[in-house]
Every structure is written in structure tokens, then in C-alpha cells.
């Protein structure tokens, strides 16, 4: 038993050091001249786009979301060990089980750069996003690219201005985004074409069907959002939005600073059981 106690104590003492040493330092990413990628988040009710400064030549799909959270205040939470996207912009399950609201879940799409989308065959943690890439996330049901709703037809230039400057040229950008809005629908409607390897075809059909409208609520919500969000002003970018990100993980009813009340009950129960068991062992004698 003393050896066990030493082992436990050792674990407790080393655990924080272990995690703090291994924790990757958060890179400070301001929107600079470096490579940028576009991120499209489609909750089904509204579409928001983010122009994200990568801070490296390429990042993985999950890091892109973290960067969007840091630079633009996108609320997100990951699950399954940080390998899957549970919630974005407040939509989706808040726990660690990203399929808690199945059949609805966040589908991951990769853009071909000219408005077409292909269903990603690998997880966001396993793809590499470089400068000029566009990635999309849509909330909805359907387990494949043919049934899951696709993001609206957007190209990298619709989200990030070619000029490369912070907030410059946002008016032009939003115009482009608005124009391609209608086409987004056909991306969803013709989603059968939007399969990995069929990007060209899918993009072509999008262009041909631009006049088709989306559901009324969506087409109303989008242009305004698009105009507001594509490139926030430099001041917005400079302020990393920490509290927003946390809010995505915590529920409204538990205080962010400490454990909920039932935890104390559990701690008391553990103490009583451990001490009670110890007393019982002692009263029954060591060897019988």
C-alpha cells in the first residue's frame, strides 16, 4: 500500500508538468501578409465566411477553425479528443459526443476554388489547408456528399480580397459573394454531382443554375451576413475573442469558473466510501 500511495502521489505531481510541457504554445496570428485561407460556416440558417491568416504555409482543417476562433471570434467546440467538430457558431452538441444530435452533424467540404464543393473523404484533422484554399462546414443530415447539404458556391476571392490588405476592398468582396449566393443552392440540390473527383462538373452546374434561389430565410440572411463578415476590420482581428470560444463549450447554466454543485456531492461520496472501506478492511483484520 505505501508503494501504491507513492505511485499515486507521483502521478498527481507529474501530471500538470507533463501536460504543460506538452501543450503547444498558441501562435499569435494577426492578419498579416502571410498565406490566408477561406472558411465557410453554414449553420443551415445563416452562412458566415472568414478569411483566416494561417501563420504557416499550411495547417490542418481543425487548426483553421481554431485560427478563425482566435482571429474572428468563431465559437467552436471539438469532440472525440479534439479530432471532430462538435459545434460551430453555437450550433451543434455542446458535449464531447459530436454525434449527439445525429442525424444532424457538421459536414466537412473542400472547395475547388471556383465555387464548387467536394465532400471530404478524410477528417478535418487529416487534411492540409494551404494559402488560397477554401474549406466549408455545413450543419445538416446526410452521411455523404450526395445527401448532406453543400455550402453556397463561394470562391476564395469572394471571402478574401486579392489585395491582401486587412479590411481593404470589403465592398467589392461582398458584391462577389452576393452574386454567387444563388448558385449555392444548386450545389445542395445537385449534390449528387458533388463527389470527390467531380469538382469541375459540380462547379459547372453551379454556374449554370445561378438564378435558382435558396430557401427564403437563407437568402435573406446571407447577403447581410456576407457583407458584414468577410473581412472584419483590423481592430476586430487584433482582439482575440477568448471568452466567445469558451462559451461554446460550457452550458449556460453552469458557472464558467468552477465545477457544478453535484460534483461536490460526488466528492463527498467518494471520501465517505474510501474511508468506509478502509475502516471495514481494518475491522475485519488483515489476514483471514
Amino acid at each position, binding site marked *: 500500500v505505501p508503494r*501504491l500511495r507513492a*505511485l*499515486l502521489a507521483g*502521478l498527481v505531481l507529474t*501530471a500538470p508538468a*507533463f*501536460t504543460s510541457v*506538452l*501543450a*503547444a504554445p498558441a501562435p499569435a496570428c494577426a492578419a498579416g501578409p502571410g498565406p490566408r485561407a477561406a472558411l465557410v460556416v453554414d449553420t443551415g440558417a445563416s452562412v458566415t465566411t472568414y478569411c483566416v491568416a494561417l501563420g504557416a504555409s499550411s495547417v*490542418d482543417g481543425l487548426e483553421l477553425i481554431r485560427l478563425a476562433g482566435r482571429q474572428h471570434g468563431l465559437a467552436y*467546440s*471539438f*469532440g*472525440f*479528443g*479534439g479530432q471532430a467538430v*462538435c459545434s460551430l457558431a453555437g450550433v451543434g452538441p*455542446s*458535449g*464531447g*459526443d459530436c454525434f*449527439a444530435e445525429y442525424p444532424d452533424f457538421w459536414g466537412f467540404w473542400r472547395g475547388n476554388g471556383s465555387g464548387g464543393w467536394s465532400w471530404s473523404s478524410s477528417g478535418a*484533422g487529416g487534411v492540409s489547408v494551404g494559402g488560397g484554399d477554401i474549406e466549408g462546414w455545413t450543419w445538416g443530415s446526410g452521411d455523404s456528399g450526395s445527401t448532406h447539404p453543400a455550402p453556397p458556391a463561394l470562391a476564395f476571392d469572394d471571402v478574401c480580397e486579392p489585395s491582401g490588405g486587412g479590411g481593404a476592398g470589403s465592398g467589392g468582396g461582398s458584391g462577389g459573394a452576393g452574386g454567387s449566393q444563388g448558385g449555392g443552392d444548386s450545389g445542395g440540390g445537385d449534390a449528387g454531382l458533388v463527389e470527390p473527383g467531380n469538382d469541375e462538373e459540380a462547379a459547372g452546374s453551379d454556374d449554370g443554375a445561378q438564378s435558382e434561389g435558396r430557401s427564403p430565410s437563407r437568402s435573406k440572411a446571407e447577403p447581410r451576413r456576407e457583407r458584414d463578415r468577410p473581412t472584419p476590420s483590423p481592430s476586430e482581428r487584433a482582439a482575440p475573442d477568448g471568452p466567445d*470560444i*469558451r462559451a*461554446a*463549450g*460550457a*452550458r449556460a447554466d*453552469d458557472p464558467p469558473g*468552477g*465545477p*457544478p454543485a*453535484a*460534483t461536490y*456531492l*460526488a466528492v463527498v*461520496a*467518494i471520501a465517505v*466510501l*474510501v474511508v*468506509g*472501506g*478502509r475502516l*471495514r*478492511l481494518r*475491522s*475485519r483484520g488483515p*489476514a*483471514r
Partner: protein
Amino acid sequence: VSAERGSRHPGAWIAWSTGAGACAFVTTNPVYLLVLGAVAWFVYASRRVPGPTARSFRVFLIAGLMTMVVRTALVVLGTVTVEATVFAALEGLRLAAILVIFGAFNAVTDPFGVVRLAPRRFHEPALAAALALSIAPRTVASVQRVREAQRLRGIRISPWRALPALAVPVLENGMEDAVMLAESMDARGHGRGRRTRYRPQAWSPAAVVTVAAAALAAAAFIWAAFGGWAELHPPTSPLGWPEVDTWLVGAVLLLAVPGFGPEGER
């Protein structure tokens, strides 16, 4: 041994360990898992069968802690973040809780008593299962016998060199055990359809209560897992405090019920 007066029907302990295992299986919430571990410890302390098998609890506890450490260390293979480390540690804690529950089960009941419960046609698979279940406690007991024998003969070996010196007699013991078991089964007419049931054990009220408590606890957790009314997997990315449901804490505490009551009985 299991038919001793005051002992609980082995079926009650099967139900208890299955229920507790089901609770641990569906959650990675550290609060529920730690309460489960404490409950297993309490039940072990109150109801262990005296003898070498009772020591298997400690072995399983250590195995559980090692599992947790190894599971956490495996994070190094992927992208190392605080979130991933915490997630892996919680997964490891779940495995550790299941191992501790299994250790308690091993310590409170005789695995061979379990075999007798199987319907006649399933006797042989049940025997194989009981043998598999009892390998750990029997090995622990065997290791202790061999070390004692070595100590009595004045053989002092450093702990690391002791492994080969220990492995051979322990394996030999295992073989002997198996041969003896086979002989005794043959002598009792196993495999020839001549088996009779000797002194079937009755279901005491305590055993029935144990089964009911385990079933309730497991039902609450499975309901929560499928109904989604409580958070069984705390968010790990970004990290947040696990949400704890009072009802589920109560459900886990139900599993401690078989530990209460007069100490003479099991």
C-alpha cells in the same frame, strides 16, 4: 467455497459487475468514473472472500493505473495538445474503472461458483469463461506461493532478475492446475452427461437487492446514453468542467448497496 453460509448468490455478483461495467462503459465523465472506483473499493473492502483471490483487487487497481498512464502517454503519437491529453486520460480512466470493477468482482466471488449457474448445455463454454476469468487471481496466488518458497530457501534475487526465475515455476503451476482440473472434471463425469447439481444455492433477499440496484444503475446510465438527458462525455476541446447530474451520481451510489449490511455475510 461459494456455497458457504452467508455468501451471496454468484449470479448477484455477475449482475453487479455487469451493471457497474455498463455504467463505466458509456461515460468518460471523470466524476462518475471516480465515484464508481470508490464504490468498487467499498464493496471489495466489505465483501471480499478471504484468501489469495482477494489480493487480486490490488493487482487490478495497479493494472488500471498503468493502463491510464499508457493511454495518456500514447497521445505523443499524435498532435500533442492539452485537449488531446485530457481526452486520452479520461479514456484511460474509463478503462481503469472497468478494471477495478473487475478486480472487485474477482475478490468478492469464486469464479468457479459462477460455472455452476450455467445451464447444462452451456456448461463447457461457461467453464472456459470461468477459467479465463480466474487466470489473473490464480496467477497472483501462484506468484505469491513461488516467491514464498524462494524466500524460505534463502534465495534472494533482485526484482528484475527475478522474472525468469519466477516465470518458469508459475507456468508450471498453471499447467499442473489445468491438468488437475481436467482430471477432476473427468472423475466427476463431465462431458458424459452424468452431472448432478450439488447443493444449489438459494437467492437470498440481499442477492435480489444487489441485482435490483445494479439493474437500476445500469438502466439510468444507458437511458442517459441513448436519451441524451445528461452529459456523459465532457467537452475536452475546448476544455470545460464536466457537467454532473445528481441522479446519475445517485445511480452510481446504488451500486454501493451490496457493501452495506452486517459484515459477517457476503
